[in-house]
């Protein structure tokens, strides 16, 4: 077990090396002068040159790469040209907001998608199934930002049940920073008001993000449930008098979930890298917004930093999924 985890963690090294090389190469290939952009429209040539020297951007690219990698070993992700702050500090400030959003979205997707997949498999080719399949196609094909706008229009503008955007109202004092997840931090602080406020703010963006993974998880779960229901051991369970409800919710569900796990892991990474539009629509101060601003101003250090962090999280998410396989399927655990 430990051996397995260590081996998977060693895999992170080629991921980091590959990501940094690719990102540095892209930074070089992009047209335009990031230093001039950062120095501002009225800067003189001398000022621009001074800024380049300050950030080490006058040196050849491989020297820059070397400096970056040696910094990385100490947890230094470089400095942003735009905010003039260390990238690591920026990411620490923005990452929790994105993670909170992604976790909330995946939570909704899994908690709703898996039972819905089971139910539609049992009722396949009857009207609840057809309804869910049509809904799923709609959810998968609708762009997330558009869905976000619709949700805002409906629940924030017309019904006025939920706030339009942001993580907390201005009048609510945020809880002390522990995890960076406002919901968890306010619980730790025992601040119920802040907890409910942050949940209310989280609801719409999380729903907007959750619908396409939800639909995919539901369809995967439906397909694998149908497959599992045709297995011999399900026939045996029926032949020996187990109630159908127990067969489905206990025996079939566990076998079917393991096929769905892969999709859950992939979606987690996909959502992490794809929060930009939802964050923009809901004014959510997360990593996506941060990375977009950096890309627009050709501020490469934050872009590389964000890509690295998302890459690492993706690898971790899939490691967790692989470990979960072992929990669900004992055969994987022992071999």
């Amino acid at each position, binding site marked *: 077990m430990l051996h397995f985890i260590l081996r998977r963690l060693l895999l992170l090294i080629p991921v980091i090396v590959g990501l940094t090389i690719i990102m540095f190469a892209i930074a070089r290939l992009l047209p335009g002068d990031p230093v001039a952009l950062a120095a501002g429209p009225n800067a003189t040539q001398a000022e621009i040159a001074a800024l380049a020297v300050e950030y080490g951007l006058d040196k050849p690219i491989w020297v820059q790469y070397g400096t970056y990698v040696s910094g990385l070993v100490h947890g230094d992700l470089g400095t942003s040209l735009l905010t003039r702050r260390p990238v690591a500090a920026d990411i620490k400030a923005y990452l929790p907001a994105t993670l909170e959003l992604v976790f909330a979205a995946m939570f909704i997707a899994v908690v709703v998608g898996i039972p819905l997949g089971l139910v539609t498999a049992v009722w396949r080719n009857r009207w609840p199934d057809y309804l869910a399949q049509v809904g799923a196609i709609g959810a998968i094909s609708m762009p997330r930002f558009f869905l976000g706008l619709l949700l805002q229009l409906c629940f924030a503008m017309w019904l006025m049940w939920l706030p339009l955007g942001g993580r907390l109202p201005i009048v609510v004092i945020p809880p002390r920073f522990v995890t960076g997840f406002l919901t968890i931090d306010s619980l730790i602080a025992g601040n119920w008001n802040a907890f409910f406020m942050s949940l209310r703010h989280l609801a719409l963006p999380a729903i907007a993000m959750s619908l396409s993974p939800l639909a995919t998880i539901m369809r995967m779960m439906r397909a694998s449930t149908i497959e599992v229901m045709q297995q011999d*051991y399900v026939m045996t*369970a*029926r*032949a020996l*008098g187990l109630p*159908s409800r127990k067969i489905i919710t206990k*025996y079939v569900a566990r076998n079917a979930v393991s096929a769905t796990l892969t999709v859950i892991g992939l979606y987690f990474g996909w959502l992490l890298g794809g929060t930009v539009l939802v964050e923009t629509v809901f004014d959510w101060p997360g990593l996506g917004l941060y990375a977009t601003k950096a890309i627009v101003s050709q501020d490469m250090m934050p872009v590389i930093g964000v890509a690295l962090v998302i890459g690492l999280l993706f690898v971790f998410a899939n490691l967790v999924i692989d470990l979960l396989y072992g929990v669900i399927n*004992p*055969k994987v655990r022992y071999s």
Partner: protein
Amino acid sequence: MTVPLLSIRDLHLRMSSFDGRAHVLNGINLTVNRGEIWGLVGESGCGKSLTGLSVSRLQPTPPAHYTAGEILLDGQDLLKLSPAQMQRLRGNRIGMIFQDPTTNLNPAFRIGEQLVDVALAAAQHDPAVMDCPPNASRHARRQAARKLAGEMLARVGIPNALARLDDYPHQFSGGMRQRVLIAMALIGRPDLLIADEPTTALDVSVQAQILELIKNSVKDFDMGVVLITHNLGVVAQTCSHVAVMYAGNIVESGPVAAVIGNPVHPYTRALMSAIPTRETKRGALRGLAGSVPNLIVPPPGCRFAPRCQFALPACVAAMPASVPVGDSHAVACIRATEMEALVDD
């Protein structure tokens, strides 16, 4: 006269397919009493497994469709029961064992848990299954079911049974898995056990052990058994009675000694002559010419007539009725009485 444990009377089953409706069971009659082991033999597709699945009503309808007949368990017609009533009988009155022990246990659960769930389901309808009152706490009931599961495992010959309850199916060998499945089928104390090719996937030495186990269980639990197989050797070794099936009909049935010692129906004779013995010379083994008939458009009259060397014009006129040729030995052939003379010629 006492009511027999299982009595199948004139069972007709039609199966819908893309090509049309096949008459797969064409008037099955079978009576099984407690203490009897009935072998149901025949080649693939003759309807022997379907007969077994029909008794526990596990054949989905549609595509299957029962057009006539009844299946009486202690006098109660199973074909008239609701799915919920039927579910109560399964595991509790009717136990089943299937062919492939590697695929019939759920790979994701410990075998103890699977046994416990079957025991609890059976105890819900028959509290006598385990010594724990039905109104006891959930924990106490699971505890009792687990104790019972350990006892059953030990009974079917699994060494170190209590510890092995916490193992997963893949930690058992094929023969051991079939023992676990037998324990699972017997844990609800069924009166009737249907074993569908229980030894086909096992090697011969393990096969003998499993058959011995089934034989002993019949004595211990006072059950009746329907053993479905295509292997006459298994029948001779294990069964008290045998019914030979061909294309949806039982062509010959009776005590094993009578049917195997003195086969009458031409199909049974052909089956017997296809088994090599020590005296069989190289190249002398005779197969049966022709192949199984198309059941969507079955041949008229006796379904075996097109392959039968003794067939007469009268054979294709009507289905032959079952006629007694000895003590509870019956044959569905119009030439049954003259068969001995015919073969000697």
